[in-house]
């Protein structure tokens, strides 16, 4: 057996012998409680734990005598029994009451056990790796334990932190409000007019939430991709002096707490917005409420999601090998023809990914429809109010969740069909000394007309967002003031010296800590998954890919409720800890890392990996020394994105915050609900400033992609700006 397998066998044994098996209330408190005993000490009093104690000894023997098949059997038995006993017995006794009479007689009395602790975590991890080692030894995944182990671990984590909680919620689609099985209700709720109605086409009433969501998502997906592409072309392939500002500004919306953009739009274009009043008083244009409804939501979502499309597109465009375009030029193709037949096909995976992200983001978006939607119903807000609204109908929420998941699945399939199986590799082992040709004139003009007004709008929106917190009442009284800022971030001098008196400090510090923790974890998880999906062949890859996208597609509110349902009781008890927030951030934001990684990887020739493998490097070494350095832009994008998403997310965490773990966004929404826009905007401005600093720091730490490329002949080498290219 390879040394790694033996190492895991030792870890397997250590998990049972030395680490505390149970955590009392949560993993964190394990050490503090009296139950901090390892499995070996607990098993005598709890007979159902005995098999778990015996298995590591067998595993050690199997590892040293090189019996892979036995090792796999042992590891799988350990995992299966761990799950079975963990789910069967919780802190109150038998989870399913019918088990009691059957087995209760054997065990005697009602057994109870608290949630699993670090010992159990390492135990499960080691068992998984041993299963991978055993199977790899028998030739699975070309005998590569790292690949197979990664697949199993990620799969396990996704099943535990995405699939299981989501299922606990979706199962309520076929239950009535008291938890009884009622499949008839599912049909009734599923066919409801408020979901599928088409009254708006006849000009009477509102259409169903499903159609609204779908139409909005397609519109936003298409428009944000086009805008993102236009921005990327302007930034990468033209000599426009606005490159720096474009990169800066296009990044701002993702680092903005969600509702703030909506608020700024209302302050400008609402019925009493200053633009509206100006038009009314100067040109006598009647004031209206056009902003409320699909129009406002579309604009706000475009402001929010175009930058993501931009990040994807700019990464892809920069990786397109100019020598191919140059070759086309040498063959006398015109600029337009080059773009159409060479550049466009090469950036197609990027376009598809950008669209998919825009589409799904739009469907999962919660803040903007809430702020600007008016009577325009979409699924995400409907789900939220099905759970917390006056009707309190969790079954309906689950049904709506099923519809939303269906849409995501459809988008995902369509994207796969369109991108298909063509080859998009342009980063190969050979050096590339080409120079990209200038853009066709028409295209350039189109890009400018799209980009420049949009830039102007963004500038004004951000002037409001950043300045609004530092005037008395934005839109009404523009006397500069520090009052709002000091309410949130005041520092006072008391008896014991300086202290943080502002009411926002607590949530601010917690948010920064949790986001910083989740950032590298999310990026690592996302990129590793991307590499598995793009580079490794294994059965069930499509299903695997879909599972990874699942948490992204489900509205945060559902995730939040599902996490409480799944992780409030043993065996896995996490509610009330900071860890559940980190985990929620990780699995919710991981898909962006995956998309960025896949888009970049599909452009990098496999021959690079193969060269490394031929030279004797194993897959882990290849991943570390060849793939990762090329993936730098994707790493930056994934890190930045997971950090800012963690800082700005609301809906997923609103059910998970506790007194110790308050989050910035929840505080901001609370202030906005109280009409204290000054404080909300001041806090947002501080968050934005901090995130800009963080982005610069990330870029300095990770560094830039260094593919040998000469600059486009339209201008000098532009320093790569803020936007994580």
């Amino acid at each position, binding site marked *: 057996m390879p040394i790694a397998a033996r190492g895991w066998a030792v870890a397997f044994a250590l998990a049972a012998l030395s680490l505390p098996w149970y955590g009392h209330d949560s993993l964190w408190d394990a050490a503090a409680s009296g139950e901090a005993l390892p499995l070996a000490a607990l098993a005598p009093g709890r007979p159902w734990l005995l098999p778990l104690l015996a298995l590591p000894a067998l595993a050690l023997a199997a590892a040293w005598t090189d019996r892979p098949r036995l090792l796999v059997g042992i590891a799988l038995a350990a995992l299966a029994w761990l799950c079975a006993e963990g789910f069967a017995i919780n802190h109150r006794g038998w989870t399913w009451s019918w088990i009691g009479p059957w087995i209760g007689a054997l065990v005697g009395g009602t057994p109870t056990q608290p949630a699993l602790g670090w010992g159990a975590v390492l135990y499960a991890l080691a068992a998984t790796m041993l299963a991978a080692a055993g199977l790899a030894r028998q030739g699975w995944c070309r005998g590569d334990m790292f690949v197979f182990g990664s697949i199993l671990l990620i799969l396990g984590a996704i099943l535990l932190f995405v699939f299981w909680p989501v299922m606990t919620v979706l199962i309520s689609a076929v239950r009535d409000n008291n938890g009884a099985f009622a499949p008839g209700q599912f049909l009734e709720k599923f066919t409801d007019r408020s979901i599928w109605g088409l009254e708006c086409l006849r000009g009477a009433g509102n259409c169903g939430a499903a159609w609204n969501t779908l139409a909005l998502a397609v519109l936003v997906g298409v428009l944000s991709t086009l805008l993102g592409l236009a921005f990327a072309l302007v930034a990468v392939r033209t000599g426009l002096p606005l490159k720096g500002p474009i990169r800066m500004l296009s990044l701002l919306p993702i680092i903005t707490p969600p509702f703030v953009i909506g608020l700024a739009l209302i302050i400008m274009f609402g019925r009493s917005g200053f633009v509206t009043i100006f038009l009314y008083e100067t040109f006598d244009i009647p004031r209206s409420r056009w902003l409320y409804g699909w129009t406002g939501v579309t604009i706000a979502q475009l402001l929010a999601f175009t930058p993501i499309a931009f990040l994807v597109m700019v990464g892809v465009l920069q990786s397109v090998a100019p020598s191919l375009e140059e070759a086309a030029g040498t063959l006398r193709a015109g600029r337009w023809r080059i773009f159409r037949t060479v550049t466009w096909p090469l950036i197609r995976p990027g376009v598809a990914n950008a669209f998919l992200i825009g589409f799904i983001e739009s469907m999962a978006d919660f803040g903007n429809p809430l702020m600007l939607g008016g009577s325009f119903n979409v699924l995400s807000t409907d789900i939220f109010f099905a759970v917390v609204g006056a009707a309190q109908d969790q079954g309906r929420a689950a049904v709506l969740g099923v519809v939303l998941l269906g849409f995501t699945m459809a988008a995902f399939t369509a994207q796969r069909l369109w991108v298909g199986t063509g080859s998009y590799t342009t980063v190969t082992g050979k050096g590339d000394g080409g120079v990209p040709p200038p853009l066709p004139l028409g295209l350039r003009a189109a890009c400018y007309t799209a980009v420049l007004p949009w830039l102007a709008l963004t500038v004004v929106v951000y002037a409001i967002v950043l300045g609004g917190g530092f005037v008395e009442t934005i839109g009404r009284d523009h006397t500069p003031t520090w009052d709002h800022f000091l309410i949130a971030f005041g520092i006072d001098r008391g008896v014991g010296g300086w202290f943080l008196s502002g009411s926002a400090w607590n949530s601010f510090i917690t948010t920064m800590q949790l986001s910083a923790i989740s950032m590298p974890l999310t990026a690592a998880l996302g990129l590793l998954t991307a590499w598995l999906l793009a580079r490794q062949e294994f059965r069930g890859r499509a299903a695997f890919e879909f599972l990874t996208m699942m948490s992204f597609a489900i509205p945060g509110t559902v995730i939040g409720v599902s996490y409480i349902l799944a992780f409030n009781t043993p065996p896995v008890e996490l*509610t009330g800890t900071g860890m559940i927030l980190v985990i929620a951030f990780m699995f919710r934001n991981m898909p962006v890392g995956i998309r960025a990684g896949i888009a970049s990887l599909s452009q990098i020739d496999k021959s690079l990996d193969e060269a490394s493998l031929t030279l004797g490097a194993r897959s882990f070494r290849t991943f570390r020394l060849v793939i990762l350095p090329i993936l730098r832009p994707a790493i930056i994008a994934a890190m930045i994105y997971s950090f800012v998403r963690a800082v700005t997310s609301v809906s997923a965490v609103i059910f998970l915050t506790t007194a110790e773990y308050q989050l910035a966004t929840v505080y901001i929404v609370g202030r906005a609900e109280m009409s204290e826009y000054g404080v909300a905007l001041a806090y947002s401005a501080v968050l934005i400033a901090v995130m800009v600093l963080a982005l610069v720091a990330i870029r300095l730490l990770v560094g830039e992609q260094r593919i040998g490329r000469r600059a486009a002949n339209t201008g000098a080498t532009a320093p790569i700006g803020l936007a994580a290219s």
Partner: protein
Amino acid sequence: MRHAGTLLFASMAFLSAAALPARADVVVYCSADEKMCRGLVTLFTKETGIRADMTRQSSGETYARIRAEKDNPRADVWWGGTGDPHLQAAEEGLLAEYKSPMLPKLRDWAVKQAERAAFQTVGVYMGALGYGYNSEELARKKLAAPKCWADLLKPEYKGEVQMADPNSSGTAYTMLATLVQLWGEEPAFDYLKKLHRNINDYTKSGAAPAQAAGKGETLVGVAFQHDVVMVALTGKRPLVTVSPCEGTGFEVGSMSLIKGGRNAADARRFYDWALGISAQVIMPEFGSFQVPSNSDVPVPKEAPDLSSIKLIDYDFARYGSSAERRRLLARWTNEVKGAAR
């Protein structure tokens, strides 16, 4: 890669710096606004020395959370928020019964609320339904100030009235139930159908119409009167509170003990304290202008003058029940919301 490793280490160090949580003596879920909630628990700790942890969420969110946590409750007390979800939680057996020694000191409607739920909840404040109008917008349109529910039907208010969707908002459901009790079901629905022509939006959240009116995005927003006062005072908006002349319904903000809470003794101390004078007299300081339930505490002067409000005898038992609620909501959705403007 070296850098990424450094980063990972740095963030891990950061993690260990995040202090391990210390256990609180009592955990409070609070459904009023942040400032009010924070002020309340701070004062409690100051006066009793008992450490209290507070998490703020809207009443619907809190109810959903308590339901989800029922196998392993995390909180001890649920303070504030409109009474219906408290009653529903009591009906589902999520709350603990407790007869506080403070009960005799409470105003009538607060005790009634407790009796309705077999002493699993109790009233802490009361607020009347009404609406607010933006005086600047009114002047711009040169309209007379509205005074009654009926005024909102006038053709000059077309597209100027905003209310929440009763399917998602307890405030709007209170309005629906109020009108049904005020005039009978048929005339009430007749009114709502006519009102539908003047409505510009049915918002999701019950707090939104008052805020939209404050910003001038709509002329009239239907809301609880204390919420209108709050927007006007803390948001510094030209908003005028109206208590409809025909009479109006009200909400009873409630407090409950959660069944299976881990700190039952301290939770009861909080409960008794929250019904006392010192806890209720501070509410206006934090922007809460409702009527306090302790009869020794005066009504705040900013609060809408109760003597000028005609309150109906709101039948919480009937209109709070799931069956009646579902029936009225279905009828409203079919006959009013889906109708052409």
